[in-house]
């Protein structure tokens, strides 16, 4: 039981972490809670399904399962990066100097728009992610059953987080993102094109959410236009738990939330999964709003 819930928790936690990163990166740089971020994740799941369907239709004899997964991930990441870029440019950039509530309302608008757009374009019924692998059980010890997909998701999440860490800490654009997050005017005076850095931040956050969408679609097998809502709020909870604006915080927050949910579902009752997640959100906001790794706001000055 313990080991089973541990694996389940890491799987879902990794996905929460990937989505939470987009929330936290965007918040870190423009102090906006991008409520449309969950929708980007949902679009990623659809993009993956459509890419596989297209490839299987166009290529005679279909494509190997591994190639299908790779294609789905690639398509989702590209499509989501494009959505993230466009969303920022159209819905948030014009409000850069507006009162803080305005972009927040705009984000809610984008969220509703995207959800309805996908509902109209793809229909209200669940879409099935193709069943790609025949035998998906990696090992089965009677009480513990771990699938290949779970292992792939856990490994994939960790790889993407490691890659993100490298980009943020060791590349020129990553350093510019950190600099811009700290002081936009000083960054501009250094010759950094701040709008460009903000666009890149949205694109990176969105492509991570897109990858998460494909992973979840593969894991559960079904998606629909409304999955972004709950996943979005859960990932937001993870970001707040870790400390909004803090990148390692989002990773840790996602993992902790996934594990708590999973253990809660296993030891208490599966129905309490969401109750646990939102109790955490409320508790963190009440007791330590800066989160586990969040810095004092005073330090930012």
């Amino acid at each position, binding site marked *: 039981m313990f080991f089973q819930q541990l694996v389940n928790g890491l799987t879902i936690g990794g996905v929460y972490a990937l989505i939470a990163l987009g929330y936290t990166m965007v918040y870190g740089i423009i102090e906006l809670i991008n409520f449309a971020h969950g929708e980007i994740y949902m679009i990623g799941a659809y993009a993956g399904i459509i890419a596989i369907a297209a490839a299987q239709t166009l290529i005679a004899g279909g494509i190997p399962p591994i190639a299908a997964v790779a294609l789905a991930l690639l398509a989702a990441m590209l499509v989501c990066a494009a959505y993230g870029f466009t969303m920022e440019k159209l819905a948030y950039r014009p409000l850069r100097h507006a009162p803080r509530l305005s972009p927040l309302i705009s984000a809610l608008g984008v969220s509703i728009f995207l959800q309805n757009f996908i509902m109209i374009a793809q229909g209200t019924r669940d879409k099935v992610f193709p069943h790609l692998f025949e035998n998906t059980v990696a090992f089965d010890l009677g009480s513990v059953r771990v699938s290949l997909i779970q292992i792939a998701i856990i490994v994939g999440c960790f790889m993407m987080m490691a890659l993100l860490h490298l980009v943020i800490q060791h590349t020129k654009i990553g*350093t510019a993102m*950190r600099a811009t997050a*700290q002081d936009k005017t000083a960054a501009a005076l250094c010759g950094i*094109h701040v709008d460009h850095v903000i666009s890149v931040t949205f694109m990176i956050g969105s492509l991570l959410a897109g990858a998460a969408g494909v992973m979840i679609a593969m894991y559960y097998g079904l998606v629909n236009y409304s999955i972004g809502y709950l996943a979005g709020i859960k990932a937001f909870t993870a970001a707040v738990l870790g400390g909004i604006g803090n990148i390692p915080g989002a990773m840790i927050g996602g993992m902790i939330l996934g594990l708590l949910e999973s253990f809660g579902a296993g030891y208490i009752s599966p129905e309490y999964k969401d109750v646990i997640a939102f109790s955490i959100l409320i508790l963190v906001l009440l007791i330590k709003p800066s989160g586990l790794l969040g810095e004092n706001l005073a330090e930012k000055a």
Partner: protein
Amino acid sequence: MLEIRGLHVHYGAIHALKGIDLRVEQGEIVTLIGANGAGKSTTLMSISGIHAPSSGRILFEDFPVEGMRPDRIVRAGISQVPEGRRIFARLTVQENLRMGAFARSGSSVGNADLDTVYDLFPILRERRLQRGGTLSGGEQQMLAIARALMARPKLLLLDEPSLGLAPILVERVFERIREINRSGVTILLVEQNAHMALHLASRAYVMETGRIVISGDSRVLVGDPQIKRAYLGEMDIDTTQKPTRSA
């Protein structure tokens, strides 16, 4: 090298700059002095493209730069050391410096540039892996200047480099500014420490509530009784001598 003509800047309802005229020639050190809120920092921020002027011209090497994007202005050759230093506290010293060179193409920014600024400010070499926020005020000022130099500016704008520094450090910073100028960088210096600024600069402009009220040779202005009284903190009984007021 830099010519400002009739520059007006508004912040909402506030008319911050009311027609500034200012020139800086190649190789000069020019200072802009005046009380708090006179519009000195606004002038520098307008040159750097952070504030868009409502009217007027800013010509850099005879090319209009007003309303241009800040990163393009840096690329054109104007760097600024902003008031309060504004170093990136959570980036290391070396990362701060590399950000200073952001606008230049990646490959040409080698360790040679870092070595140049480390030679100018040896303490930064020692501290290169420390976070900027852990440096002392004087070291942060040096880092801010070094960061601006990483862009290889032709014109360096300095906003109150003496602010909050002990007198001994102020002198050290001013020495470095003179050294930077000797290496061929033109300097426009905003200061509240009028005394130090007038001794360093060859020419000076005095601002009051969004206007330039006095301008001229620094050596002349140092002796000007009104300047002495208002900005150098010296009392002068002789008020019959009128200063040259600019239009």
